[in-house]
């Protein structure tokens, strides 16, 4: 289990470690497209959380178009992790 802040922190840490990440810091209001996140990144990010929390995300959870900001994505991940 993870709380929403923890999920956000983990997501931000992951995004900052990605090669080619264009910024030094990331906040919940930052837009995923501005961070150059694409569907390939989404495949890895979501699989990371699935593995870490032994969760099973639906196919549509992987769709980048469902999320605008980093905070949106963190909330969605948190909802899946915590049911």
């Amino acid at each position, binding site marked *: 289990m993870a709380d929403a802040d923890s999920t956000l922190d983990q997501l931000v840490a992951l995004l900052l*470690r990605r*090669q*080619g990440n264009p910024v030094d810091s990331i906040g919940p209001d930052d837009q995923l497209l501005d961070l150059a996140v694409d569907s*390939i990144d989404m*495949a*890895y990010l979501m*699989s990371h959380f*699935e*593995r870490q929390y032994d969760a099973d995300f639906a196919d549509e959870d992987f769709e980048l178009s469902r999320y605008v900001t980093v905070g949106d994505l963190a909330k969605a991940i948190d909802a899946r992790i915590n049911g």
Partner: protein
Amino acid sequence: MAEGATRTHRPPVLDPGLSLGWDDGPLDGLSCLLRCVESALRAEGFDNLEIAQALAVPLDLRGDRRKSSWFRHGRLDWRNAVDGHEHWDEFTALVASGTPCVLMPDRYYWPGDEFEGVKHFLDHMVLAVAYDGEVLEALDTDAPPADGYRRRIPVTPDVIRGCCRFATVHFTPPRDDAAALRATLLEPTAVALAEDLPALRAVARRWRRDGLTGPAARALHVVVLGAVQPSLFLTAMAVEQAYPALAAELLTASRAAQKLGRTLIGAHRWAGALADDTSVYAPVLGVFEACEAALARLNDELHTQLGLPASPPDPTRDDEGVWRRILRNQAWCYADQVAPADQHRDEQVVGEQRDEERQR
């Protein structure tokens, strides 16, 4: 070049609206190599069903059952050299005369590539379509869509050197009926899949035990996106009319393979070019296991729907076949031994080459 019927020839293009399975991106269903061949065949007048039947081959996870570069209705004729100068005249003469050529450049010499000047890495293919003596024009699934997936590359000595592998395309328009599709695609897939599933499970066991390094993960994504996904997808398209229920099962397995390949590519972005940090790839293991499960379901469906007997356990079975294929790809794609920067062509022999290693 097409052999047989007279057909309308058009300039080759990479067009998502015309292409098989291209929804979100060019690697939906096909590899970069097969997108090139698809483009060449469409330019020769093949329709989508003919392209699918021309390019579909039985699934072969072990990767040693098919003659290199041969398909059921055609072949690719590869010319390989460590130094592209060796066959530059032939290559450019073909392209300039209107024969599109599949080109597998050494990314070390390829302008703007992430591996330029860094690493001899050969895992990507483009379709060379024009040459005017100064600029080589190529269709490239990695090129910007706004440019029509087209690159215009000013030719330099390094570019020439990097054009070390190219192929011409030779296919006959297929005439597959249901019996032929069953005999040459579906039954061989069922037999091979039953044989190979234990070896696939052995890869998962190895991954759980030892982890997966960056080079092995890159080799795996080449196998998955270059061979496994296209084989499943193209077979589904080829048999869709004759065997719709099996086509649906094949598509499901194809999507599982695609998800695995895309997740591996995503992981590379966290791993770096030469990562030995196996923890980066640990999250992908679950996706691999899901793909393995999808292939096991496909195996069951193929045997049930085709009325094939289940294969009895084979005590002499080869559980390392899939892993060996990954290692072959690793050696082929990380090609220091193939294209040393400070040596010339005669000092190295290009090793055994297999289709899947040319099909990212």
